[in-house]
């Protein structure tokens, strides 16, 4: 039986190094245009990929997740704040799942 605390130590060390190495090593502005462009697009792609289809998989009903996804996009498009969009998405799922259970 391996030691749980050593496991936790390994989890911490590996996670920490992955996150910290690029931040500490890359200190200058990168000059290469392709690389700069790549890093410029990375956040949008990563966040988009993480959001969909995960948003329809975390909820019990796919429909509730989908409605929340579409309304979330609309609200964000209209310029609603971070907090506002997040709370609206939660409320929509809660209400949708409630209604679906009633039907």
């Amino acid at each position, binding site marked *: *039986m*391996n030691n*749980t*605390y*050593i496991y*936790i130590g*390994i*989890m*911490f*060390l*590996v*996670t*920490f190094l*992955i*996150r*910290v190495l*690029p*931040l500490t090593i*890359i*200190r*200058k*502005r*990168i000059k290469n245009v*392709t*690389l*700069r*462009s*790549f*890093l*410029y*697009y*990375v*956040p*949008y*792609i*990563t*966040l*988009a*990929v*993480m*959001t969909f*289809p995960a948003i329809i*998989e*975390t*909820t019990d009903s796919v429909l509730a997740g989908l409605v*929340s*996804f579409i309304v*979330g*996009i609309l609200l*964000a*498009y209209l310029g609603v*704040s*971070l*907090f506002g969009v*997040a709370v*609206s998405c*939660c409320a929509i*799922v*809660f209400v949708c*799942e409630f209604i679906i259970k009633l039907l």
Partner: protein
Amino acid sequence: MDGIPIALGYFAVAFTLGITAKNSGLTALQTFIATALTNASAGGYAGFRAIAENVSYLDMALTILVVNIRYFLMSCALSQKLSPKTPLLHRLFIGFDLTDEIFGISMAVKGNLCPYYNYGAMTVTIPSWATGAALGVIIGNVLPHSIVNALSVGIYGMFLAIIIPPAKQNKIIAGIVTVSFALSFAFAKIPLFSGISSGIRIMILTVAIGFVAAILFPVKEEETDE
């Protein structure tokens, strides 16, 4: 301030992670330490499963490396948001809590990123994350399922609020976001690819789409500096 919706979402996710930890035989204290140190949902989940299976220490290290490799990309991207003068200690602290969500809000900051912005977010998110997980171990399934469900989409709502406004102003970003949604859905549903874990899927798609986009639509200097 931006940390508060994240903290709420974290609490819900951490709670479910705590249930996994409990099933893997961890105590509330061990779970609290593990989650406070790693701040990673998929990484935590994979780690707890590995503990339950009593894998070798090397396997544990590899599992965590693969599941969390996307942070490597995020860290590269974030390095460009920091002022070149940012001292090492600040870089270490920012890296320590570079999560999907913190990355999202950090990239949304205009101009250079000030380390104290991250520290502000960390002071609400880390306690919420670790406490949520420990509570998940202790009280398990007490919180109504419908509430856990509703809270867990909050994070995605936040992501949308980060990526949609720039997409509205920039057609290229709008196209990239749309392609990302579509390919991500396809990868999750096509049987050939659906066996790939979500961490790996995120990484493969980010590299592939980002590379193609960078070649097709190189950005000029001023734009990346915002």
